[in-house]
């Protein structure tokens, strides 16, 4: 199993002021650069940045291409991932995406991972006046044509349902041929199956358990072999899972340093979500319906929750980790609520190196290809995130990286035997 970092670039508003100080975003970005540079030196394989819009406090990663371009000049080996670019043409025109991806690939020496997605929240889709019913076909059309623009000379042009353009040669072309590895955001089982059918890596952002991952791995590779309609010129078989992360010398210290990070992550995610699981007031009204852009302090709302409720979200029990059995017993039945619950929990990658090693081994046993860590979240301290990246990178990552080469890679090759499509994958 390979490892990476995952960034929403969370920036909770201060509790004692109405808005951020003028330097807060610059500081956030600079700290992230330091964290990724450290991860690069320690041999982490990937960094992924989301693209979200208008989701104050939850995600200030609105222009991932800028962050990745900067990192391409500050790092040596780490793969630079979009996790994801929102592909509806009204948000990102496919030609502009092709130009940006190819340019980044050239200046980074071929280190780009091209993650794609539809967009999810009404706050974002509504901001670009996108009809939710059309977003899936917009994603497909935008992604397919974007890949053709990168790999074909000239691009023949297109007349589609959601965008059209005449023949042009879209330049530059990416260093990786025929194009960088393709991924799609897959928070749910259904989208993992979709990823397989399109020959794309599955960016599993739903905090799946090892048991769920094992089932998905089996289904995913079977579909790759038997029912694949590649969206690109080369397929990128792979399953990635996202996990909450904080490492320290002891479990108790990791939980203390984790603070309310996962809790705030889950709360703010739910706040902007429009399906079941969204945060509601005592009267049952959706908080998002009362949201005032530029004014509402989500962090303060979170902080005002009764302590037992916040503890329930982060599952801190006298600064101890819950057992897997306790976690399973407490999980909500509904998928979205369950994903938020899992996003909040102090789970399998929060603890001492020994605890984390034991817990994430279960994902390795399930043949997970990549695990990315949500380290920067909520109001966590930068120095704690740095120490966690270093501790894990030195004490846990190397043995997994070694087994990736000796055990996982041969297993993958067996899964992909007979697949007739070209493969471009960094896994």
């Amino acid at each position: 199993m390979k490892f990476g970092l995952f960034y929403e670039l969370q920036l909770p508003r201060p509790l004692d002021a109405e808005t951020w100080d003028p330097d807060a975003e610059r500081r956030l970005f600079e700290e992230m650069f330091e964290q990724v540079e450290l991860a690069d030196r320690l041999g982490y394989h990937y960094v992924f940045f989301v693209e979200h819009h208008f989701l104050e406090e939850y995600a200030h990663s609105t222009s991932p291409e800028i962050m990745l371009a900067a990192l391409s000049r500050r790092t040596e080996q780490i793969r630079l991932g979009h996790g994801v670019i929102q592909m509806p043409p009204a948000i990102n025109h496919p030609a502009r995406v092709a130009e940006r991806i190819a340019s980044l690939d050239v200046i980074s020496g071929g280190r780009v991972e091209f993650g794609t997605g539809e967009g999810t929240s009404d706050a974002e889709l509504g901001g670009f006046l996108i009809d939710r019913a059309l977003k899936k076909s917009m994603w497909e059309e935008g992604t397919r044509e974007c890949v053709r623009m990168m790999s074909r000379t000239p691009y023949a042009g297109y007349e589609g349902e959601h965008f059209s353009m005449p023949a042009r040669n879209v330049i530059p072309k990416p260093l990786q041929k025929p194009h960088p590895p393709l991924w799609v955001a897959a928070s749910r089982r259904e989208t993992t199956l979709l990823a397989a059918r399109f020959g794309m890596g599955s960016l599993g952002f739903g905090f799946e358990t090892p048991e769920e991952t094992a089932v998905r791995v089996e289904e995913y590779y079977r579909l790759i072999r038997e029912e694949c309609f590649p969206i690109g010129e080369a397929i990128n078989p792979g399953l990635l899972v996202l996990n909450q992360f904080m490492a320290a010398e002891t479990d108790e210290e990791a939980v203390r340093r984790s603070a309310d990070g996962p809790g705030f992550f889950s709360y703010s995610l739910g706040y902007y979500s429009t399906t079941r699981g969204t945060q509601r007031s005592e009267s049952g009204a959706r908080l998002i319906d009362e949201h005032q852009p530029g004014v509402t302090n989500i962090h303060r709302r979170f902080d005002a929750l009764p302590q037992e409720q916040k503890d329930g979200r982060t599952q801190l029990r006298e600064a101890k980790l819950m057992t897997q059995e306790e976690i399973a017993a407490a999980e909500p039945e509904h998928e979205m609520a369950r994903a938020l619950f899992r996003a909040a929990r102090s789970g399998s990658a929060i603890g001492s190196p020994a605890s984390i090693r034991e817990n994430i081994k279960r994902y390795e046993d399930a043949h997970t290809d990549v695990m990315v860590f949500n380290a920067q979240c909520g109001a966590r301290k930068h120095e704690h995130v740095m120490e966690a990246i270093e501790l894990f990178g030195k004490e846990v990552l190397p043995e997994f990286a070694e087994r990736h080469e000796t055990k996982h890679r041969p297993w993958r090759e067996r899964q992909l035997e007979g697949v007739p499509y070209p493969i471009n994958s960094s896994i």
Partner: protein
Amino acid sequence: MPRYDNVEDAAVRALLEQATTAMREGDPTSAVRTCCDAFLMLIERAPDLLEANLPADEKIHHQQFPRLGANLYGVDGQPEIRFERERFSLSDAITYLDFTTDNALRLEK
């Protein structure tokens, strides 16, 4: 072996196979329409499926019949699927196919 091969109901399985063939032949719009026929057949077998799949604020969108332009309604207690788009993409077709297959398999458990 395609997933629909595990569906025991021969009529439903035949429709899912037909939808898959349409997808392979580059006709996702026909595939969506065929999946809709299959889902209406499932509602005939299990009428509770209709109520469970009608849109409501408190339900989870993706656990219901997809609303990507072939949308399910209840008219006087009877199911009706209205096609509110003329064309569907392959990803739309895959979404309807997987949803219908999952429900067919679940009903037979």
